């Protein structure tokens, strides 16, 4: 039986090597010789040997083609046809390894549940074991005969819950791929705590794959009690708010401990109000949120006198409860605020308002904005500025331009816009740039270097409308990041001395363009500011199991260390790894040529919400009809299991191809060397 019998027509290709061999036999390469009168006696023997060798090559070629065609035709084999009962089933046991399975003795219950499933399986049934957590669905055993159930149990004994979150939607939408086909009619045993927070956004994602029947094995608790750190926010220069959640009324008297850079700096008790009323909370600095199934309280910490720089802050509950994994929350606090000097015609100008709003939207890092009129700009003002935003270079005095030149050459960063009067300004910042006339024709952006950190996330530039623009020609060393329809650059990056300049070749003027009022403007200016002050777009906070941008590039290598100090990247992969997936909560350290930075990784707080799915939802899930089978032979009830031989045949064909190459090369070598060396 074949999955694609039409592919067998490819067997006709066998005629090609046969024809070639006949052709080759009829026209061998001959070497003239004066007389063969002394060579007649041994001719028969030699011809026989030659024919035999060519037959070997022909046989290899024919066998290769046959195997290739068969592999694509997908032959199905029924090796255990005699042993498989007509009503045999595949039991796909999916074990939830998410963080919430650490709660109480859930994991122990998993072992017992799996034992029950195995015990209830009938002879002839097959077992598949899948460990599910995060985005990984690891098939640990695939279609084991029931007699090998001991192997499955041994594997389960070694398995432990992870710190990742499980999404039932992702689990079910990917089930068709990790449940290999063709297979027996399948019972998918989902051994899980039935967390409500694991539900997908779209209920339809829970649809089971074709010919698969779902069986829930709930190992959750009826009324689980869990207290956890939900969030932490720094509300001021020296204050923090820690939000604590609880799924039930805590019975344990707990405190919130604030730990900064490895030292405890504050501790406060937590008291949840009684569920029945909205009584005022006890204790200084404690406020309550509205009551619901999961209640939250917030604990305020003030007077945190932290030095400038990045601080690793851990908020934890002491003593911990039975579910310790979510009792700690890691975050990074950037204490210093880089100063941005915004130079504009006046504090009430439109462009000043646009820039202030965009830069002010940055939360990581937070920037302090100092606004200065163009005529007041001096070298002294520039000192200590992490970034200078120049709204219109044409408004600057000669002295201010000189000071700005020195500032950039010394390593400063400038974001500036050009206007029609910019061409007349003599400054190194514009050296080599040819600023032409104003083009009044409407145009749009056609080229965007989307891989640049400034433009990576800013969105659709092509929607911005330009009513007029400056005709600009970039210098040879300039990087044109954005260009208009006529090729005129809109955003240019220049390296001047140790500093860097981003030139926006259009004013933020509604009569010129609608850039300033476009949604992407805020993100663009924020990314540009972060880029220019040396804070790349790599995030400083992440969740376990979610990919994180490392900020490492092929040009500047680096290494990442996990919270226990072990290297995350293999040495060979250290250079190109621009992202990684953290597997545990804590602070990951990223070391690169650009310096050292930290990434605070936390477990997904949805795993802390231990409430189970309502029965009605479960019934709706069970009522979902399985997907229609995409492959005709995916499931054949009552028939013995048929295993596809495509892959081994393909492997064998590859080996034959190699053998054919060697044999053919040998013959070719004979012909190549067959010359007289007298």
């Amino acid at each position, binding site marked *: 039986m074949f999955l694609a019998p039409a592919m067998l027509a490819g067997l006709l290709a066998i005629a090609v090597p046969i024809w070639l061999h006949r052709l080759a036999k009829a026209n061998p390469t001959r070497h*003239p010789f*004066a007389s063969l009168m002394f060579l007649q006696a041994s001719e028969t023997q030699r011809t026989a040997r030659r024919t035999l060798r060519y037959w070997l090559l022909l046989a290899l070629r024919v066998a290769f083609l046959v195997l290739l065609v068969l592999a694509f035709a997908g032959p199905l084999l029924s090796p255990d046809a005699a042993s498989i009962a007509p009503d045999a089933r595949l039991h796909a046991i999916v074990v939830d390894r998410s963080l919430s399975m650490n709660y109480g003795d859930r994991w122990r219950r998993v072992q017992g549940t799996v034992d029950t499933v195995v015990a209830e399986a009938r002879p002839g049934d097959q077992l598949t074991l899948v460990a599910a957590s995060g985005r990984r669905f690891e098939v640990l055993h695939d279609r084991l005969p029931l007699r090998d159930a001991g192997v499955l149990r041994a594997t389960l004994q070694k398995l432990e819950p992870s710190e990742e979150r499980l999404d039932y939607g992702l689990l079910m939408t990917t089930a068709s791929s990790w449940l290999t086909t063709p297979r027996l009619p399948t019972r998918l045993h989902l051994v899980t705590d039935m967390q409500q927070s694991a539900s997908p956004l779209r209920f339809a994602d829970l649809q089971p794959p074709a010919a698969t029947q779902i069986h829930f094995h709930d190992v959750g608790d009826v009324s689980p009690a869990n207290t956890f750190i939900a969030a932490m926010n720094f509300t001021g220069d020296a204050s923090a708010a820690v939000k604590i959640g609880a799924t039930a009324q805590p019975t344990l008297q707990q405190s919130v401990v604030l730990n900064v850079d490895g030292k405890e700096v504050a501790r406060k008790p937590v008291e949840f109000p009684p569920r029945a009323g909205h009584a005022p909370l006890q204790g200084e600095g404690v406020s309550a949120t509205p009551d619901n199934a999961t209640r939250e309280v917030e604990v305020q910490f003030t007077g945190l006198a932290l030095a400038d720089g990045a601080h690793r802050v851990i908020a934890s509950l002491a003593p911990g409860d039975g579910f310790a994994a979510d009792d700690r929350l890691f975050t990074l606090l950037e204490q210093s605020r880089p100063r941005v000097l915004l130079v504009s015609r006046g504090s009430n100008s439109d462009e000043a308002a646009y820039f202030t709003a965009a830069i002010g939207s940055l939360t990581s890092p937070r920037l302090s904005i100092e606004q200065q009129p163009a005529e007041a700009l001096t070298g002294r003002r520039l000192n200590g500025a992490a970034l200078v935003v120049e709204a219109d270079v044409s408004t600057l005095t000669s002295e201010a331009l000189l000071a700005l030149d020195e500032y950039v050459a010394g390593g400063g960063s400038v974001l500036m816009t050009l206007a029609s009067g910019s061409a007349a300004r003599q400054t190194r910042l514009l050296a080599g740039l040819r600023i032409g006339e104003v083009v009044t024709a409407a145009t749009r952006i056609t080229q965007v270097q989307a891989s640049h950190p400034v433009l990576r996330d800013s969105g659709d530039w092509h929607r911005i409308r330009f009513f007029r623009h400056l005709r600009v020609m970039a210098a040879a060393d300039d990087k044109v990041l954005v260009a208009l329809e006529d090729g005129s650059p809109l955003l240019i990056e220049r390296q001047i001395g140790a500093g860097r300049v981003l030139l926006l070749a259009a004013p933020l003027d509604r009569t010129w363009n609608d850039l300033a009022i476009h949604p992407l403007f805020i993100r663009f200016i924020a990314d540009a500011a972060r880029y220019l002050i040396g804070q790349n777009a790599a995030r400083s906070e992440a969740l376990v199991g979610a990919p994180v941008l490392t900020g490492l590039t092929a040009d500047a290598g680096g290494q990442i260390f996990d919270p226990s100090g072990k290297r995350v990247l293999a040495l060979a992969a250290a250079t190109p790894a621009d992202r990684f997936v953290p597997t545990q909560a804590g602070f990951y350290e990223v070391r690169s040529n650009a310096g050292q930075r930290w990434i605070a990784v936390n477990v997904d707080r949805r795993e802390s919400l231990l409430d189970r799915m309502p029965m009605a939802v479960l019934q709706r899930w069970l009522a979902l009809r399985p997907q229609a089978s995409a492959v005709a032979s995916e499931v054949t009830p009552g028939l013995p299991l048929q295993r596809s031989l495509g892959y081994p045949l393909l492997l064998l064909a590859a080996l034959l191809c190699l053998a054919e190459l060697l044999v053919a090369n040998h013959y070719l070598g004979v012909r190549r060397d067959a010359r*007289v*060396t007298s």
Partner: protein
Amino acid sequence: MTLRLLPPATLAALASLELIARTAVEGVLTGMHRSPHFGFSQEFKEYRAYAEGDDPRHIDWNVYARTDRTYIKRFEGETNTRLMLLLDASASMGYGSHSVSKLQYAKFLAAAFAYLASRQQDPVGLIVFDEKIREHRPATSRSGGLHSLIHAIDNVQPGGGTDLAASFRGVREHLRKRGLVVVISDLYCDPELMTRAVQPLAYHGHDVMIFQVLDPAEIKPQWTESLVLEDVETQQAFNVSPDDIAKHYQPRLAAHLESLRIAAAKVGAQQMLVSTDEPLDQALRRYILFRQRRA
């Protein structure tokens, strides 16, 4: 000494066959420091006392009758000896594993002999044959005869198969007067057949000299891999291997050469094997020394 040798490939680069012959012959004669008249027939030169080992046929019995002493007559070149060149132009003669084919080498040899005879005013003729006689030029010593003869030699191209019996029957019809007959061929034939072909010439008093010209690849093939060989005369093809050549071909060739040598000796002819990679002047020198020993 080596520098003075004339490799066939070097000679082949010369445009004129006459120039080739002249270069070879003059080089040989200069190198031997002897009279240029090393002819093909005998002319009295001197008497000397008979010594043991001398051929008794050369004893002058008249002198013996007069003096009662035995003297040997010594001879030198004599004019008016007819030289007839028999050039094999069969297809097998066109074979060559390097820049000079057997036929080309045979043409060098023929031209050199023609020039050698011409410079001592001996008449020279030419018969070109393969399965039959393709061209016949009677022996002549006329002025300008050498040029036309060498031109005829130069124009010879390899033809069909070889039939010594038929060809030599025709040759006999053209050779009325005795003289020296030089046969230049690769002699891919039955030795017995060659005996039958040459014997009548010897019986008619011709001095027959046979040059067997072979390519070095025929004498000692050096193929490193199996290959398909095609007979240039019959177009028959065999797949042969180096092992088979070492085991079968070379012993058979050696036996064939020995048979030819015996067959030639049986009819009073001389046979000389020449390889086409042998310098032409060296081959001529070998011939002259061979003739001197015979005298």
